[in-house]
């Protein structure tokens, strides 16, 4: 947890954008470790697969493609300090209030799940029966995003192509 918080703070203060991305990896990994300690193997692995294996690589790739590979480093400077502090402070207060006010232990699903052992088979069954609509909608949404991305990327390529 110290590692997670420490690396998150490092992201905020470092000026080198690549270091920030790599510190983000440490944050994600330590979050995965916290999940494992909480007994949520599946969430931990998904965390690594999606965030480290997918999003972070995309992020680093993006940085590398846009970075000038010369003597100048890309720096992420801080602007709008007052406004930033205000916005994040407000968000923090709202979340903090919300979390402290909510009584998670009294929720129905939480009471039921306490007696259950974490099991991937059960998780899969529930996902494909009780929550199948949400699952399908997410799938459709991702497909749409995929088609959109291909459309945008494909068009850009045609313009750059000089007569083949």
């Amino acid at each position, binding site marked *: 947890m110290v590692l997670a918080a420490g690396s998150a703070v490092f992201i905020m203060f470092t000026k080198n954008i*690549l*270091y920030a991305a*790599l510190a983000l*990896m440490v944050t994600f990994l330590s979050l995965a470790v916290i999940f494992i300690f909480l007994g949520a*193997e*599946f969430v931990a*692995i*998904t965390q*690594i*697969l999606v965030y*480290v*294996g*997918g999003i*972070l*690589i995309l992020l*680093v*790739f993006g940085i*590398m493609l846009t970075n000038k*590979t010369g003597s100048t480093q890309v720096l992420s400077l801080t602007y709008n300090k007052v406004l930033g502090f205000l916005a994040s402070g407000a968000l923090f207060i709202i979340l903090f209030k919300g979390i402290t006010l909510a009584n998670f232990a009294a929720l129905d699903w939480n009471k039921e799940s306490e007696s259950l052992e974490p*099991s*991937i*088979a059960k998780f899969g069954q529930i996902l494909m029966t009780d929550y199948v609509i949400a699952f399908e909608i997410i799938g459709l949404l991702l497909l749409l995003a995929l088609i959109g991305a291909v459309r945008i990327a494909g068009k850009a390529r045609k313009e750059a192509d000089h007569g083949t």
Partner: protein
Amino acid sequence: MIAFLFFLVFFLVYALIAVYGERKISAFIQDRYGPMEVGYYGILQMIADLLKIIQKEDIIPFAADKRIFKPAPIIVFTAIFAGFAIIPLTSDFMGSEVEAGIFYLLAIVSLDVLGILMVGWGSNNKYALFGAMRAVAQIVSYEIPLGLTVVCVVMISQTLSLQEITYQQGIWWNTIDPDAQNYLFGIKALGIETTAIGGILTWNIFRVPLFLLAFVIFFIASLAESNRTPFDIPIAESELVGGFHTEYSGFRWSLIMLSEYGIMLLVSFLAVVLFLGGWNTPFPNIGSVELATWTSGTPGTFTGHLWGAFWMISKAFTLVFIQIWIRWTFPRLRLDQLMNLSWKYLTPAAIILVLLSALWRMLMI
């Protein structure tokens, strides 16, 4: 802990054998001798090389980004080595029996990609950066057909645990699940039960004949994952000097090389577990000639461990041999051909296979 130490030692010994094997096999394919000077038939060549590597100076280029450059090989190596934690070497011996075994493996190997990016970027060298970019583009693309073929197997086996997948492919399935039954080609309607016959008939590639195709796709994708020819443009010597590890020397370089050979072994182990029966024997029981029972011990016993490890390792080494063989027989693919192969042929084929294996599963129950 025992598994950790075992795999660490095994890994190092394997790397020595694999490097020696690679040099010898390549030599024979190209009609020359390979290492001959050190020891009988050059057999001590690798130990000499190892001593040389350890003595080398660990050079860190002046312009390199030291904070990224230094830990990068360690991340690459750790990611690969962590994958071995869930490989069921025998019926009772593995690092960790996580329920989500195969899922974990796919996740942890993706850390390797990040390590390669760090290697390439930290070196501050255009060849290294190009190599890393190519490696990552390639690995990320080929992870998709690889993942989809894994999904095929998971759909048929109904489990993510590698140990359980292995149990299903042999005569010992009933020891963990008394009601389980295997049928010839997985088709229940044929009515030929093969649970007690075992051997090659219950391996996934025979249990579900579709998996012969899936295995080919998996194998091609795994070659790309481990940056082996014909997918070795990230380390193409003729274009990029040495690829993403151009700037490294000494121990850090050897860590990167170790991981390259490590991932070859890891994907071979995975292919063996998913398609080729894991630690199960290839010989079936034929009537009173109980070849399967003779060539495998009861799970948990000493003979069980010995036979299991023997079959598992020899199958994996055969696959590694095929990888080396392919490397020295095929030319490398161009970048666009590489992407075409992944996105236009392998991925659609793998998606169709996922669909078909869902249908095949219906025949099995």
